[in-house]
Every structure is written in structure tokens, then in C-alpha cells.
């Protein structure tokens, strides 16, 4: 069976993923994802009734550490890699539209 994905769906997923892609890239992804998803449909054959999902194969127990202050990344170092910074913070493009 072939589970195809429409160009509109691809466009919607790209928007969710915050990827601004050209039409030819979206078209290519439609083909690739369609092929991959169609192939993955074979999973339907696997009987998983009554089976619990495994989100983590090996669970760490008691993963919490002592809540003690310790030195972390210094402010200046954290900002150094940002494309833009100002007033001691990360500077970002305008979030709100209009005035």
C-alpha cells in the first residue's frame, strides 16, 4: 500500500518545523517522505496489542543530583556565540507585528 502525502501537508509540516523551503525542495520532500512512509506502513503487520511502548530502553534511577549551586557558563561566554546581543541579552527580530 502506498501512503502518500500531499504537497499541502508537506507545506504544513515545514511550517510547523520552521523550515522556509522553496517549492522544489518541498516537492522533493513530498516524494521522499511518501516513499519512506509507504515503506513504513509494513509496521501495521506487527501485532502490538497489549504491548507497552518503550520510550527509554534503560531507565536511570535516582537521576536527581544534589541541588547545590555550582559555577555554570558565564554570562559573557553565553552571549559570545549569539548573532546579535544587546543590553546583556540575546537580541532577536521584532516578535509582535504592528505598533
Amino acid at each position, binding site marked *: 500500500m502506498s501512503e502518500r502525502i500531499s504537497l499541502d501537508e508537506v507545506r504544513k509540516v515545514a511550517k510547523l*518545523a520552521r523550515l522556509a523551503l522553496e517549492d522544489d525542495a518541498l516537492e522533493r520532500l513530498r516524494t521522499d517522505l511518501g516513499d519512506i512512509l509507504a515503506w*513504513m506502513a509494513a509496521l*501495521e503487520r506487527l501485532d*502490538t496489542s497489549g504491548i507497552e511502548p518503550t520510550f527509554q*530502553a534503560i531507565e536511570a534511577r535516582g537521576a536527581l543530583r544534589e541541588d547545590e549551586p555550582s559555577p555554570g557558563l558565564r554570562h559573557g561566554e553565553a552571549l*559570545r*556565540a549569539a*548573532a546579535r546581543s544587546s543590553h546583556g541579552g540575546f537580541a532577536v527580530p521584532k516578535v509582535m507585528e504592528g505598533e
Partner: protein
Amino acid sequence: MLHDSSARALRDAIVRGERGALEVTRAFLERIDALDPKLHAFLYVDAEGALAQAASVERKRREGAALGPLAGVPIAIKDNLCVRGIPTTCASRVLEGWIAPYDATVIERLRAADAIIVGKTNMDEFAMGSSNETSAFGPVHNPWDLERAPGGSSGGSAAAVAGGLAPLALGSDTGGSVRQPAAFSGLVALKPTYGRVSRYGLVAFASSLDQIGPFARDVHDCAIVSEVIAGHDPRDATSLEREVGSYTASLGEGVRGVRVGVVRDTLASGVEPGVTRAVERAIETLRALGAIVVDVTLPTAEHAVSAYYIVAPAECSSNLARFDGMRFGPRVEEGGLEETYGKTRARFGREVQRRIMLGTYVLSAGYYDAFYAKAQKARTLIARDYERAFEACDVVLTPTAPSVAFRLGAKLERPLEMYLADIFTLPASLAGLPALSVPAGLSEGLPVGIQLTGRAFDEATLFRVAAAFEAASDHHTRRPPAFFGGAA
């Protein structure tokens, strides 16, 4: 020859004063200069940092201080591991120019062992790929045949060690990314049990699968590095508080009475005859050494590719959300915030985009149960398959990859074909189990690897079986002729 020495031989020579740490480091840096243009294994060579570390090892020795288990031994580091003060790019335009402000825990541990970090190695972009061709900075070439892929995603680390540009390297393994390149390059590599090695400072790809693992040219060297990097770290909540023990202590114990499980059914299709022959020979070698060979089955393993390529992209789509150009990495600022995010993230390469899209899709409303939840249930069944198998055996033996190294370009435009080639390495990743690839001879002049998978936390048995196999063969002495001279 220095570049053909094992890590422990180099270390011993340095400790005894027969070689200087600076002399050894310089020799490898010169070899990188001379030969890396052919391989493109390195994205960054830290000559200055390496020489400073070597000088400090020499100083320690002069002062009579105790030297660590990797004293003066150069090691190459995959470019998704943070090394303070030098670039970490994940072979991506999205992180181009980013300088890591801290050391990963594994790097701290290597430094504490007096290892010399020589540079950062090329890889598939964000570790997504099985050929190293998705690197934004160009592919790595396999030292055994420059027209072929070194494997991936830790292809640069594999090529560096196989070509004798470093005696050791670290890679990361999410679905086979140290084991498959080790097989393609004639090396030993371990993917430790999930949680065995701290991932603090590893750029996350798929957090329920990622582990850091070493490359070496023989089992003993691989065991030494594994021991150095393993252990609990409070900075990684998934790292386990569990005794590591010694990986080297049992190397000489042999395999008499060890039960080796062989999977003969579903996994057997689509394997190259040369690979099958190498596996059959390996089974006979182990049997002759006194191992008990039993047949086991992993009936759900045929679904591992589907399950993995749902789970890993889902986790990647979430983990890679942080690369938006706001706090690190280059920003393509156009219009408002949304547009800037989109344009910045359009700098991800095609494979990374494909996986982010796939992951976003399988997590999205209406598809979650059909894909994501289903895949996580398949994962439970795969883990149960192993539990059942380990009632009958101590290690499971399979090929590491269905073929020898393929040609560069052969699969790049056919993603599904590339994914299917991961069939043997994915099941252990999904089950969180330790797995090791060890050389098992050549097929048409190219290396074949066999994979040994063990019970959770039982890396020691993998090393023990691999060491016995290695000692009974000469596979690990084979070198790519173009880089070592003489016959293969």
C-alpha cells in the same frame, strides 16, 4: 612505525621515556598534514592545543607524576562533541563558526587520562547519515579505496584511525554510527550500553538512542578508551550510577563455554556473499576456540528500520528545534522572527531537513498513534526478542553491515536504500544494548566487520569474545595499503 603502533605501545614508550609525547604528537600532526587532503577526515586540527597538552605530559613525566592510561596518545574527536575553545560544527552550516565554551565530559575524562586531542573529525551532518556524504563540508574518503564511503555517521573518526592519522578516535552512535564505519574501515568500535557514557557536551540527535563510543585498531585499545570514558556523571541525568568494572581484565580469558547466538533467519536476506562468508568463518573460529554456537531468533528485528526511522527523526525534530540562530550559530535575519527562524533553518542540509520533516510529521496530530506510538511498541518487542535470545546465549553475532563499503554517491539520492543498510545495527540501539564491531577479514580487498551484541552493562563479555577472536586471526593486522605501504 609510530603511526602503526597501538595506543598502549605508544603510551608505554612515552612512560618509559623511549619516546617523547611531543615527538609522537608532532609525528601524527605531520601525517595529518600530509595525508588528510586525500581523506578529508578532519574538519579542524588543533595543532597548538595538542602540542600544549603533549608538553604538559612531558612535564608531568619529568616531575615524576603518575601518568594516565592514555598518556601522550593522540585521539581524534567527532565534531559533535564539545572541546573547549575550538569549533564544534556537527558538519553543518547551521553551527558554522561556533566555538564550544566548555568540554564534554568524555573530553574531560580523556584529558584526565593524559590523552592528546588532535582535532575534530568530519561526519554526516548532525550525525544523520550512513556514508558521511551529508557533511556540509564534503565527504570523507575511505582509506581502503578513496572512491568509497568510510561509513557514517562517524566517518571522519573511522578514516582518521584506519589511515593512521590518529591511533584512536571518538564517535557517536545513534543507530550504528560507530559500528558501521568501523566495519567499513577495518576497525574495532563499541557502542556502549545506553547510559554507560555521559553525553554531557554531545550535541543531541536522538536522546533515547545516542551513545558515545571509541574507535581503535584492536580490541585492547578499544577497551582501554571505553574504560576511560565510561561512568556516571551528574551532569547527564541518563547516565547510570552503576559500577563500570574493568574491560581489560578479562581480555585474555578466552571463549571456552561462552554461548554465541547466531541469527540465521530473517536477517540473512540481502547480505553480500563476501560478508556471509566472513561471518561463517568467524563462527567456525569461535567454535574452534571452545565457544558454544547456538541458533537464536530476533523475530521483530525486521521492523527495526521502520521503528528507528520513526523514533530517531521524532527525537531529532525536537532536539534540533534549538538551532534557530538566536543564541548560537549564524542567523539569516530577514523580516520578522518567524521568517528569520525559517530562513536560518533552511541552512540545514537535505538529509537533516528530511529527518526533521519526517519527525515532525510522525509526531503531528492524527499520525502519532499510527507511527510514533507503534514504533515505540515495536521497540518493546525488539527488547523482548533480545531477552529471550539471552536466555540461550551470552552474545549475539551478526554482520555489522550487509555489505562492504559502498561507492560514494551510490545511495545518496536514495534515502530509503541508505536507511535499509542499517538493518543490523539498529536493533541493539533500540534496545539500548552494548554492541561492538570487530574486523573479520576482507572481501574483495575491503574490510568486513562482525557485530557482537551483549546484555545491558555487559561490555566486558563483548571485549572478551572479540579479543579471543582477534587473537585467533590476523584480521586486525590488515591495513589499507595506500596509507601503510606493502600488501593489505
